[in-house]
């Protein structure tokens, strides 16, 4: 089972470190990271394996929000993207 984390907001130091640190604490394995910075706008998409995660998706989102300030964070099961964008 895999999920997608997206982090969107103003670029600052340490976002990737905080997000991947929280994933490690939650026992979620990071599979792939893609990020882009356009002027000051930061967007990161991270694919994680949640098979052995020690919490549920919503709890991970809460932990990320606590650890990464002022960013818009979504954590969603990958199936929603697969069903919407793949035939």
């Amino acid at each position, binding site marked *: 089972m895999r999920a*997608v984390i*997206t982090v*969107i907001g103003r670029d600052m130091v340490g976002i990737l470190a905080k997000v991947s640190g929280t994933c490690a604490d939650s026992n979620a394995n990071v*599979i*792939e990271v*893609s990020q*882009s910075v356009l002027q000051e706008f930061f*967007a990161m*998409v991270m*694919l994680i394996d949640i098979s052995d995660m020690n919490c*549920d*998706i*919503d709890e991970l*989102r809460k932990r990320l929000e606590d650890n990464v300030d002022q960013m*818009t964070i*979504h*954590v*969603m*099961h*990958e*199936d*929603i*993207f*697969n*069903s*919407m*964008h793949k035939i």
Partner: protein
Amino acid sequence: MINMHDILETIKMIQDENLDIRTITMGISLLDCADPDIDASCEKVYEKIYSSAKDLVPVGESIEKKYGIPIVNKRISVTPISMLVGASKGDPVKYAKTLDRAAKDVGVNFIGGYSALVHKGFSPGDLALIESIPEALACTEYVCSSVNVGSTKAGINMDAVRMMGSVIKKSAELTCDRQCIGPAKLVVFCNAPEDNPFMAGAFHGAGEPDKVINVGVSGPGVVRSAISKMSDSDDLNMVADVIKKTAFKITRMGQLVGSEASQALGVPFGIIDLSLAPTPAIGDSVAYILEEIGLEQCGSYGTTAALAMLNDAVKKGGVMASGNVGGLSGAFIPVSEDAGMIAAAESGALSLEKLEAMTAVCSVGLDMIVIPGDTAEAVISGIIADEAAIGMVNSKTTAVRVIPAIGKGPGEELDFGGLLGKGPVMSVNEKSPDKMIQRGGRIPAPMQSLKN
């Protein structure tokens, strides 16, 4: 990995464009709750609903969290209560109160099925139920009611049409201290679908399984936004294509949520209803889609054509995305629930007559329209008869949900709050159809009914 652009597109749809699952509706058959003793029957009804749907809200919420997609409503539809009244006799309002209690206890926000199907005539249970509707809607909070007065196969029961004019008026009078909310929970149908997940017209048809999960998707804001990114020189073929692609994505999401809910609840997955359902939220409006296509304001000439194209493109995109499509499946045009429709009605661009024309090319009908409180019962019946005729002849569902604003006239408004929104009082043609309505009887089924 999934394309980053696709991921951000989905996030934007949910965050900025009001994409959501409008409703997961559990249909529950109450036929096994029939009992000659009405109190025993009510007890069985409560038990069946509670035991079937107690996990509906928690399951819905866990799916919301898993996929990060809002599921706005969790609802229940039940077997038309007139069938139970026919078996038990007694005061039908007892059933309404039972439904209300069950809905409250399982945490859903509406329960539909205080209904009667009388397109060809009345059984004693039907008559008792219809007469009780105003009181039932006044003394309950969650119960929704519907009456099917016509069908392409059977014609239009004009006695029922006459009765419903009076029921709507009385229902508004009994709730005049609460913004006349009664008739906002009452739909008069022609060709009512048996698997509709949307309120207020949802009921669980006799041909349905014991329990079923039906899903209603939404997304007018997403469609509008997709069209807004197009160039003014793109032709209507291209616009229809963009609508199709967007509808496909929205529906696939509904399919995913529906199968997940069905699996978690152990209840078969019925259908996805492809309707574009607006909400009063800014941007989540069907009228704004029509304006984005190129109308100065919804209600102008061209509105019916634009709506016909929108409705058709939504179906074409949605059909491929889902295994089973059903319910109403078309664009809704409820005036009070759509910011663009409200603005168009207030500015005078959108009249009741234009809305009637629009209902010929989309689902569902004259929906959530506030009319003057002194509108005669026969005029309301006339409105119902006209809508039913459009549905009957075109083999489609049509419906009327009008709310007489008791003590108010054009220029004033009713504010229901929440998803039901607020609506300006729209003027109606007051010339009386009373003589025709009083004739009663049945308008025979049209030639279209003879397909065999």
